[in-house]
């Protein structure tokens, strides 16, 4: 059967074919053109590779990769796939290693991913062995280009992808720097399994329109909803975004006074408001900044709750969301406790974000049988640039702009 090509009805990104979330061919092509294409995939934090030999096994899209620090202090990354028959080289999620050996037939690799040893290469008692012509240097797992920025480790399969700073652009770089401006420490890791296509989660992250509509926690508890100034930044490629807001202390006082007048709301208030009692840690007054890097990286600052998220496709209708919660290495015990408390806002049980883990599934289930139809992404018009208001889907359109660029998908009427 001939695969039907994805049909984009317009050059603008205001109509998204539902087929994109359910199509096998699209899913396979994304791995090739996006995750192994001209993009940088977030792999891990530098803080997770503290010493020579520290490694982590992770993914670039669906491709298993190893990230490791060698004795020269540099970070290397290569596909976690043995050059011999393709078995995983590294089985543990993380650890320390002088070198790596595949368990299947004991071929070995150094920390830079070079094939260094073939068991019984010269045979046994003059029998067997590899042919003379076999050259270890010519074989090995594919290596990734590695770039670090502010302690974030990215990997790319592409020789053509621009340097990381150029890829991110000035504004995104500055917004990452503002959070990752000093050494961080991991304080916990959690994985959330989402019952939907990976793009639905990325869109959710970029969708500043849904936040105050889906997540009733803040409004119900009458916290942090008034007089927020902020905006949305979308980079030129469309693929990266920042949405940010700040609580105006004066407005907060007002809203607090207003609440006190409405005593019948008492039962909706937090009994233990220490959950949201944060401290000011950035001079710019921004209390919320959600930043994404194409294709699947998110850096989060919600008050003092800091985390990075890695979005990994696991087939068409499953996504793994890896949360790495962080604090600064120089946190006081009090500051660390504030972060631990505020983590109740996010993750699979997060007062705010538990719902994000479910809505993607609602869409995935909802679009069954609608492969010839489109989603409407028209809030705020059809542009995909930065915006002062947040009742817009501009950064969602930005995602599709970048996506179509990478996928080579032209509009039917363009």
């Amino acid at each position, binding site marked *: 059967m001939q695969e039907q090509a994805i049909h984009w009805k317009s050059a603008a990104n205001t109509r998204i074919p539902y087929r994109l979330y359910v199509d096998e061919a699209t899913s396979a092509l994304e791995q090739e053109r996006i995750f192994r294409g001209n993009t940088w995939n977030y792999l891990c934090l530098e803080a997770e590779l503290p010493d020579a030999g520290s490694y982590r096994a992770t993914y670039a899209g669906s491709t298993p990769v190893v990230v490791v620090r060698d004795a020269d202090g540099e970070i290397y990354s290569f596909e976690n796939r043995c050059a011999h028959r393709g078995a995983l080289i590294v089985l543990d999620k993380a650890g320390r290693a002088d070198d790596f050996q595949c368990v299947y037939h004991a071929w070995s690799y150094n920390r830079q991913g070079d094939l260094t040893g073939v068991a019984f290469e010269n045979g046994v008692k003059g029998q067997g062995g590899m042919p003379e012509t076999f050259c270890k240097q010519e074989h090995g797992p594919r290596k990734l280009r590695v770039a670090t920025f502010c302690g974030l480790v990215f990997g790319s399969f592409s020789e053509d992808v621009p340097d990381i700073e150029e890829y991110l652009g000035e504004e995104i770089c500055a917004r990452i720097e503002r959070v990752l401006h000093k050494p961080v420490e991991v304080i916990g890791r959690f994985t*959330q399994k989402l019952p939907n296509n990976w793009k639905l989660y990325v869109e959710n992250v970029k969708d500043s329109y849904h936040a105050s509509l889906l997540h009733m926690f803040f409004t119900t508890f009458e916290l942090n909803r008034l007089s927020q100034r902020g905006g949305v930044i979308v980079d030129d490629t469309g693929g990266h975004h920042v949405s940010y807001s700040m609580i105006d202390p004066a407005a907060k006082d007002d809203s607090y006074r207003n609440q006190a007048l409405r005593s019948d709301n008492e039962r909706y208030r937090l009994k233990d408001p220490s959950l949201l009692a944060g401290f000011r840690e950035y001079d710019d007054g921004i209390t919320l900044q959600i930043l994404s890097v194409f294709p699947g990286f998110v850096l989060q600052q919600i008050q003092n709750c800091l985390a990075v998220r890695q979005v990994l496709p696991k087939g068409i209708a499953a996504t793994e969301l890896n949360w790495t919660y962080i604090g600064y290495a120089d946190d006081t015990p009090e500051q660390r406790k504030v972060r631990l408390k505020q983590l109740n806002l996010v993750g699979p049980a997060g007062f705010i974000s538990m719902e994000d883990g479910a809505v993607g599934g609602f869409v995935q289930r909802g679009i069954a049988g609608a492969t010839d139809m489109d989603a409407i992404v028209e809030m705020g018009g059809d542009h995909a640039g930065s915006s002062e208001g947040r009742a817009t889907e501009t950064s969602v359109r930005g995602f599709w702009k970048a996506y179509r660029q990478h996928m080579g998908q032209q509009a039917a009427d363009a």
Partner: protein
Amino acid sequence: MIDLLQLAAFNAAYAQAIDSDSLEQWPGFFTEDCHYRITHVENEAQGLPAGIVWADSRDMLSDRIAALREANIYERQRYRHLLGMPLVEAADEGTARARTPFVVVRTMHTGESDVFATGEYHDRFVRRDGRLLLAERVAVCDSTVTDTLLALPL
């Protein structure tokens, strides 16, 4: 002396409160200054302190229930806790330490039932005014992966 039977009876009542949707009773199983956390084996082994849920007061537990009832949006679901025999590590008149294995099956409103979580409670009990209460319960899940969302307490 706090004994096995008392701990088992406590756990049975705890599980019943959650599984029968009497969630408002749940904070009452804890002391006012309790610690409650849901985490998993890898974080525990590495001493990483963060939780999927992290509370250091009974009021924070009440706030969770209030949020579930009033604020959070999630598909209707029920749990069935199957709790193993508490392994009593230490016990005297007023305090006890125990570990209890759990299996939680989640049934969604669609009718699907799945094993949602397995793991072990790491507990510190105290007796206050004759009543047994949890001063600390850390639910250490075996899997590092959580399906979609975790709304109800473990």
